[in-house]
């Protein structure tokens, strides 16, 4: 009987240290980023701000339980002036599954540190970031991008937008040649 550690047939004699005091378990996170620790986030909003945020939060509560669905959190943050990527929102929510996104609900007190984290983000996009980002697609180097080209970029790169989203965004932005002056475009986007 070869003393092979084949734990298939043999009863688990040398069980993996389940209850034993094992050393800190290796986080087997290969692809997923480590979960965000929101307990370290200090909420710095003033009482007035928190009241405003609570009001906005309440607008999204369609159930009346003083909570909002996980999949509404991105929009609430946007309504409050932030521009998080969907990925960033999922991260502050603790990388929920799709079912959680649709089914779990969040109360305001739990929402606040998430919002604070997004507000504190040092990598937030600025006017210059957006302009330079769009300049990449300025083939002729004349400050314009073709609307058609921008539509394709928005629909195929990054966090792809749907046709409906793109249409809503581009409404009235292209000139008679189908071009968009991207500095003006970004100014318009940032004005709200």
């Amino acid at each position: 009987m070869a003393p092979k550690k084949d734990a298939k047939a043999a009863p688990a004699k040398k069980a993996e240290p389940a209850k034993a005091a094992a050393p800190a378990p290796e986080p087997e996170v290969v692809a997923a980023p480590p979960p965000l620790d929101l307990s370290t986030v200090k909420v710095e909003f003033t009482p007035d701000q928190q009241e405003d945020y609570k009001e906005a939060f309440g607008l999204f509560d369609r159930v009346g339980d003083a909570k909002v669905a996980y999949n509404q959190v991105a929009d609430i943050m946007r309504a409050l002036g932030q521009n998080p990527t969907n990925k960033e929102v999922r991260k502050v929510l603790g990388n929920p599954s799709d079912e959680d996104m649709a089914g779990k609900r969040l109360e305001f007190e739990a929402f606040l540190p998430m919002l604070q984290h997004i507000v504190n983000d040092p990598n937030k996009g600025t006017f210059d970031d957006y302009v330079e980002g769009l300049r990449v697609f300025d083939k002729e180097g004349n400050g314009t991008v073709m609307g058609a080209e921008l539509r394709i970029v928005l629909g195929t790169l990054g966090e792809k937008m749907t046709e409906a989203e793109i249409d809503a965004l581009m409404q009235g932005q292209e000139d008679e040649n189908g071009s968009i002056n991207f500095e003006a475009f970004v100014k318009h986007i940032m004005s709200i």
Partner: protein
Amino acid sequence: MECLNDGCPKTHEEDIMDIPLDDPEANKAAAKIQASFRGHMTRKKMKEDKPREEKRQEQK
């Protein structure tokens, strides 16, 4: 019907141009821009919906 993100056939004439689909920097820049656009559109929609929303809130 809205076109879902991953199943949308983009059969425009221009799709032969060199869109850097695999470039992480381009994708990162795109995601940032898209985030700002989504933020803008949500705020715009909220503004437009506000009178209606406030009425609904009052009726709660």
